[in-house]
């Protein structure tokens, strides 16, 4: 292997940036969520038994022919538009040829010199709120390969005892987004890397063209890094760190590669053009295979597919379907909801923007919506080992629950119980309150009796209250709640106590 033990120590990040300007480039692969594969009618689904979501086409059996998935082309055009790209009127697929067992035809059907979308940009927001523009070279359609599992200690095909291949992923539609070289990033390079991948993920999620789950490989990033001496204009030799599959990893990989390159260059060495593997545990990269620009994939236009042609009408119709760009939407919602920066960041991180927006649209206040989704619903989801969004809580349910609280018919604690009963299938909130008799006890009789009992059992507390320490009333609320099985209205309890003691509230 090309890994050498004598590779110089990486420079510190600060020192590296004092001496060199980093140039970045990203290739992000997005797996589409179409019902079927890119060129066959086999299902496009994740997590099933190996080799079940396959048919003769995606297995590349003799005699089979591909047919382009029209839905995938629409997704590619939408993504191209969202990335501010031009859309090709005419483009073809090509065969990228290499022998590898995860590719059943021993070529990958991809777009070579005729991508469907090209020359775009995406504006990414950095931590300090500044906008950095990343230029897009192209976005092209292609098919995914199958998945290899290598048995044995090496974990790679070399030295494996045997290897297993699952073709469920073979032929899954992919869009590869390639940036132009990103210069001028300086010390913000790692941050820009994270922000860019994050922006792309947000866009494909908003377009609903991908499940966009990085941990499942729905969005995969190859990060290219090179350094050039400060002030130089000729790019240095690049390394390509493959399949960096989390936002944090992308940031760290770029950070590490800048330091590694600088260490080698400072020691008078030269960078090997190669692919690198990201090592999550050590936060370093290791050498993969050498890669040269002369890799010969013997590309030629795929003769089994007719060219894809687009019309202005079609493109405009798809443009009209585009959702609000995620960055703009976030700015709009943050203002409208008046959350603090921290609150908003937490909501975004929890992936609950959609849910809160729908809940607010259904009539809840922004504060209440946040309280429910970030609080009880997240807690229940956690307890039930699922995602908040997957619990099945309808915005209308939350509005109804809140209404019951506002009307004083239940308190917060009861409301939480009602939600849990609701999730267990007992019906709507009002229905549950009625069936289970959970309505707050605030009528004179039962409540007054409970208060009187609590006052009789806690003469010391009564004394304190009578002496003007109104906060002490809290110590009476507990016993009253106990007596009424939690259904007492705390405000009402306070009222009765004060009334009994002849104090003006």
């Amino acid at each position, binding site marked *: 292997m090309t890994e050498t033990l004598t590779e110089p120590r990486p420079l510190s990040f600060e020192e590296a940036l004092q001496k060199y300007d980093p140039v970045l480039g990203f290739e992000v692969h997005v797996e589409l969520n179409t019902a079927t594969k890119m060129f066959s009618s086999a299902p496009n689904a994740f997590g099933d038994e190996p080799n079940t979501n396959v048919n003769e086409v995606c297995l590349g059996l003799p*005699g089979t022919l591909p047919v382009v998935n029209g839905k995938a082309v629409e997704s590619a055009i939408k993504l191209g538009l969202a990335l501010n790209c031009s859309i090709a009127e005419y483009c073809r697929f090509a065969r990228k*040829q290499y022998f590898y067992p995860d590719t059943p035809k021993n070529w990958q059907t991809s777009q070579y010199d005729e991508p469907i979308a090209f020359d775009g940009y995406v504006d990414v927001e950095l931590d300090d709120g500044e906008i950095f523009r990343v230029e897009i070279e192209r976005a092209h359609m292609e098919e995914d390969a199958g998945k290899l599992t290598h048995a044995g200690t090496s974990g790679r095909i070399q030295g494996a005892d045997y290897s297993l291949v699952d073709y469920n992923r073979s032929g899954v539609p992919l869009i590869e987004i390639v940036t132009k070289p990103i210069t001028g990033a300086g010390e913000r390079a790692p941050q820009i890397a994270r922000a860019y991948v994050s922006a792309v993920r947000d866009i494909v999620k908003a377009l609903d063209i991908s499940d966009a789950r990085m941990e499942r490989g729905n969005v995969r990033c190859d990060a290219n890094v090179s350094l050039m001496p400060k002030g130089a204009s000729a790019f240095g030799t690049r390394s390509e760190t493959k399949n960096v599959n989390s936002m944090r990893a992308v940031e760290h990989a770029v950070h590490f590669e800048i330091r590694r390159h600088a260490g080698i260059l400072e020691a008078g060495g030269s960078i090997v053009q190669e692919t690198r593997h990201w090592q999550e545990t050590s936060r370093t990269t290791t050498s993969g295979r050498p890669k040269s620009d002369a890799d010969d994939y013997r590309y*030629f236009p795929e*003769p089994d597919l007719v060219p894809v042609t687009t019309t202005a009408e079609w493109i405009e119709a798809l443009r009209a379907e585009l959702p609000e760009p995620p960055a703009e939407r976030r700015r709009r919602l943050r203002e409208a909801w008046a959350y603090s920066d921290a609150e908003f960041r937490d909501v975004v991180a929890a992936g609950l923007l959609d849910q809160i927006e729908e809940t607010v649209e259904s009539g809840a206040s922004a504060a209440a919506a946040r309280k429910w989704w970030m609080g009880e619903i997240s807690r229940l989801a956690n307890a039930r080992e699922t995602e908040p969004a997957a619990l099945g809580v309808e915005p209308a349910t939350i509005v109804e629950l809140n209404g019951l609280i506002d009307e004083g018919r239940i308190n917060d604690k009861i409301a939480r119980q009602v939600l849990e009963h609701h999730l267990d299938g007992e019906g709507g909130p009002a229905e549950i309150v009625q069936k289970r008799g959970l309505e707050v006890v605030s009528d004179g009789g039962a409540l007054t009796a409970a208060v009187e009992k609590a006052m009789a059992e806690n003469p010391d507390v009564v004394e304190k209250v009578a002496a003007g320490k109104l906060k002490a009333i809290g110590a009476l609320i507990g016993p009253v709640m106990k007596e009424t099985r939690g259904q007492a209205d705390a405000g009402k309890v306070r009222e009765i106590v004060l009334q009994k003691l002849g104090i003006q509230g």
Partner: protein
Amino acid sequence: MTTTLSGLIRLTAAQMAVKLRAGEITSVELTQAHLDRIAAVDSTLNAFLHVSAEEALQTAAEVDAIRAAGGTDAEALHRLAGVPIAVKDLIVTKGQPTTAGSKMLEGWMSPYDATVVQKLREARLPILGKTNLDEFAMGSSTEHSAFCVTRNPWDTSRIPGGSGGGSAAAVAAFEAPLALGTDTGGSIRQPGAVTGTVGTKPTYGSVSRYGAIAMASSLDQIGPVARTVEDAALLHELIGGYDPKDSTSLHQEVPAFSTHAAAHDVTGLRIGVIKQLQGEGYQTGVLARFQESLEALRAAGAQIVDVDCPSFDYALGAYYLIMPSEASSNLARYDGVRYGSRVLPEEGPLTMERVMGATRAAGFGEEVKRRIILGTYALSAGYYDAYYGSAQKIRTLIQRDFDAAFEAADVLISPTAPTVAFPLGAKLDDPLAMYLNDVATIPANLAGVPGISVPGGLSEGLPVGIQFLAPSKQDARVYHAGGALEKLLNDDSGVPLWAQVPEVEEAAQ
């Protein structure tokens, strides 16, 4: 006229269909007669790689039962229902092996049917079996089959043409009335020419390629093989039409080709004689029959005109870059990983690359390797523009030559092949000489236009083929012209050429 059971096989497919419909014969009788014929002569001819008697008889019995029951089901039967057929072993069939004539796929069973096979099954044509071919359809003599050498029924010491020598020989020797072939550079038409049968290469995209094992995707077409133009037309009607599984498939209604085949009147039909497809390299006897065909057509009222297609001189060169380039890619999948044969290296470590290499070294024959190497080279970085790119430009020029020629003529005419059937082994050591067999058939594949080969008489006792070409999507014209010439020559000699085939020596029972 009464027909004995053994005489049944000498009818045309259209005549068989009439007798079946009239209840004069059953499909089981007809199918059995062909199976008997195969049993009698195929050990001499080797037209078949696989015979599926049981399946064919079962389909035949089903047709007979439906017909016997009468009613709407019987009325709904396809015109060719019950007429047996043979399928070139390049076309995948469920339940019967598909080898492509290669060791690489020996023993492989396709889990799916080609679209054309599905159509045969829906129309209930008993499938007699799979016919021999040059390995992966690469050859002009069927000598490159990994399994056996097919012999020409007209002279068993000679080649039956290729790559579809099995289908052509089977039809010529009455082992089957109909067969399916594939034509990438002439593999239907040239075997038709040298066996005295009829073969059509349809317009590219007019018959689904789904399930035809690809050699060169932009050139391959499935087409009919028969003894008469009408029979070829009937089979073409059955297998043609749009297929959503083939994205190069044309959205086009299938015309009634058989009506055109029976039209016969050539008055005023402009027939263009291609200057480039005659003369040097063509046998005198072939050219003599060609001239007689022209005279016959002229006498019948056709207008014979000369057309110039200068780019045709470069067709063979362009073809031998495009075809191997695409083939080198299409054949990459045969690596021993998923299906077909797997060969382990005799020594050294068992790595993935070495197993793939050993499998391909042992599984492919010489001609296949030659084309894979040629194609790999032509597509390599730095050579692509000079080879594949230039060849594509020639292709465009050839299409333009056709466009211009079809301004002056309704159909074009040429000899199908430059020679009659040559002796087995004669060109095996000279690939270039072998490639020259296809010089007249290749331009149609490069341009995607339809072509037919019809018998044009005998030279030295061996059949000569006459080729008609028509503009894209005008396949009806080749049936019209082909049907007319067939009738003129039959009327002249009094008996169809296909009926004059010498009796094949039957194997000892």
